[in-house]
């Protein structure tokens, strides 16, 4: 028995080395003409898997299958990416930024993927973007929230095909104003990490502009993954704020909702969830009524009535038996953006397989139609998208099912900063250049 584990380890190592050699040798040969290989990185385990990662990969897998079959409605009815079949390698995003940098390198250098699409966590996006430039690897950041990526840095090979988190909270404040909600006091419960702090900062700054007389009466930052909110709910009940804001997501949001309901928080204050749509499939009709809800875009129950969106919504619902929420929309928006940029690059070079640099140049400042509306790469020197969004209020329909009503739509330029502006400065300056109809 003594030699067995060593032999096995050696075998594994040799298999790895052989695979690496094969991978290097096979690059750029005939078979590569017909397929376009992408790495898809999203949470397949851990806290963000149920809320974001798994629905996103479900959506991605479905869309890739439909694209390869040429079954997506126009203008996306060509097979795969410009005739090339899409081959996806899923990778789990769990494990922290250290692991993501390593797996990103492995995808690019070992698996020789043509592009990487992924990353929900802001920390992972921040870590991967510089590596993308270093390796000259086309990288589509499909979800993550922080505005820092293209406001603090500048990257040539990384793109984010969805609006950053500033939009979510500016649009919530605008919604409150548009619906004429009277507000004298606001309170917030957000997770104690960058996402929660950034969301609360953007929300209070926006409220400061639109409701200058409203006071902040409670700022609560329970730990990420806290799960128990009894004390915080007591504090919120005591303060009787007109508006209670939360950017919580996943299990944290579900626990907060389930623990607040019997205490009557939803009756006492107007509760707003800036990114809360994704817990509707999990909570179903336990989701409270009268909550103002964002989805980080015009997604799911707030998606627009367009042929592309109707096809997407129905196809997803038919396959998985639940409504598509923000994550699959954002994944679809990234894949369709990549597809249209590749096809744009192919049209420009006469139909040949485009190089990474040709795709990158086509992606820069690109615009395309996605299920959630028109995506425009207008910020960060053409690398950061802006998009229209929608906010609504939950209600029960005649059958007692939870739905979203009183939907207000906001144009991309109304809730996103203009090019070259830092988001916080833009809000604090009173949204200069915002174009709202």
């Amino acid at each position, binding site marked *: 028995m003594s030699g067995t584990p060593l032999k096995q380890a050696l075998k594994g190592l040799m298999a790895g080395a052989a695979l690496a050699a094969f991978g290097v040798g096979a690059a750029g040969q005939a078979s590569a003409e017909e397929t376009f290989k992408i790495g898809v990185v999203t949470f397949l385990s851990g806290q963000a898997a149920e809320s974001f990662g798994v629905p996103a990969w479900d959506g991605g897998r479905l869309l890739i299958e439909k694209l390869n079959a040429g079954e997506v409605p126009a203008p996306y009815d060509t097979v795969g990416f410009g005739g090339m079949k899409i081959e996806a390698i899923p990778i789990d995003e769990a494990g922290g930024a250290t692991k993501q940098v390593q797996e990103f390198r492995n995808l690019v250098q070992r698996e020789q993927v043509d592009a990487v699409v992924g990353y929900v966590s802001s920390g992972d996006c921040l870590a991967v973007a510089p590596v993308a430039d270093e390796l000259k690897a086309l990288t589509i950041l499909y979800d993550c929230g922080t505005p820092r990526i293209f406001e603090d840095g500048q990257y040539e090979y990384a793109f984010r095909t969805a609006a950053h988190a500033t939009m979510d909270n500016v649009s919530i404040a605008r919604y409150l104003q548009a619906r004429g909600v009277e507000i004298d006091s606001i309170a917030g419960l957000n997770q104690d*990490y960058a996402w929660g702090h950034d969301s609360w900062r953007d929300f209070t700054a926006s409220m400061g502009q639109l409701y200058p007389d409203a006071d902040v009466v409670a700022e609560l930052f329970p730990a990420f993954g806290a799960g128990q909110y009894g004390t915080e709910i007591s504090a919120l009940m005591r303060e009787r704020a007109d508006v209670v804001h939360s950017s919580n997501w996943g299990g944290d949001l579900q626990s907060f909702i389930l623990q607040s309901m019997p205490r009557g928080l939803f009756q006492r204050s107007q509760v707003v969830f800036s990114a809360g749509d994704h817990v509707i499939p999990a909570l179903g009709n336990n989701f409270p009524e009268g909550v103002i809800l964002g989805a980080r875009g015009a997604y799911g129950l707030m998606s627009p009535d367009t042929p592309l969106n109707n096809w997407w919504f129905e196809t997803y619902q038919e396959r998985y038996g639940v409504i598509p929420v923000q994550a699959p929309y954002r994944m679809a928006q990234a894949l369709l953006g990549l597809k249209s940029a590749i096809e744009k690059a192919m049209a420009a070079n006469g139909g040949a397989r485009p190089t990474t640099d040709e795709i990158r140049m086509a992606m820069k400042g690109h615009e395309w139609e996605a299920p959630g509306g028109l995506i425009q790469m207008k910020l960060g020197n053409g690398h950061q998208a802006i998009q229209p969004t929608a906010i609504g209020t939950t209600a029960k329909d005649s059958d007692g099912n939870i739905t979203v009503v009183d939907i207000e739509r906001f144009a991309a330029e109304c809730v996103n900063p203009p090019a070259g502006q830092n988001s916080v400065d833009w809000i604090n300056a009173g949204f200069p250049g915002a174009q709202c109809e």
Partner: protein
Amino acid sequence: MHASTRRTYLSGLILAAALLVVGFLLPAWLLFTVTKAIGYGLVALGIITLMRGGLVSFGQGLVYCIGAYAAGLLATRIGVTEAPLLLLVGMVASGLVGLLVGPLIARYRGIFFAMLTVALSMVLYGILVKMNAIGGSDGFTLPEPTFFGWQPDVGTSDLALYVTAVIVACAAATACRLYYDSMAGMMALAVRENELRVEYLGSSVFNVTVRNFAIAAALGGLGGSLNAMALGHIDPLFSFWTTSGEFVFISVLAGHLSVGAVFVSALILELVRSFSNRYFPETWQMIIGIFLIATIIFLPGGVGSLFQRVLKRGPAAGRGESAENEGRAAP
């Protein structure tokens, strides 16, 4: 110079030379993986140093993170990108923390020592998550390192870091071997066997423990600053308990018999993780778990015990380090 000392120097040099040559043949992804494994291996080498004295730290993320943040802040705030300098600063910063923390926890043993180290690393994690000025939970990005004023281009930067890592690793491993074989280093084994007797013989258990803890901390800082440069991004997860857990895993996998084994184990872990991630994206944690259990069952003495077996069968059997090895294969 004593014959065994000369042999240690010589094997360190030969190994370094061999690894440098190998570096030119490896594909780029493997260069990076080896570099990262060396970073982890250095921290695990610190744990091995403690293990020889009968202690296991479950909180080496503390010093790993301090080394990384010291190097990272120096690079981003002051603009020093010189790799050797960043390594030195990371090592010294963590070493100093080790000297500060060591005396506070050196009298604890077993689970109490382990839990205190976890607690300290999680305190650092908690502080860093809240420090939005340096990126909070998202961390921050480091500039590309330079080497004596030379800024390698894209193709050679992986190799440059690999060369740096190999030199650092071989130097650290050689230094540790020399220390372990020295009188001071041997005291750690005595402490593990019988603390009371060590005190009666006129030695200080406290001093031995603090010294080992500081050495472990310095090695942790060295690994942290190396990985910070290799990854180009650092965040508070460097100090999270799961990171510390990986270091302990590497140490267990390596065993404390050989200083080279930690680097081999770290590389094995990286490869197992990477390939299970690639081929089992939804169950990769389980694969790693099975691998760990299999290691404990079939190789309780660690990878180092395999080296020993090979050595014992060879012509050099019974020489040199054997004094330490008798009956220690299964602690």
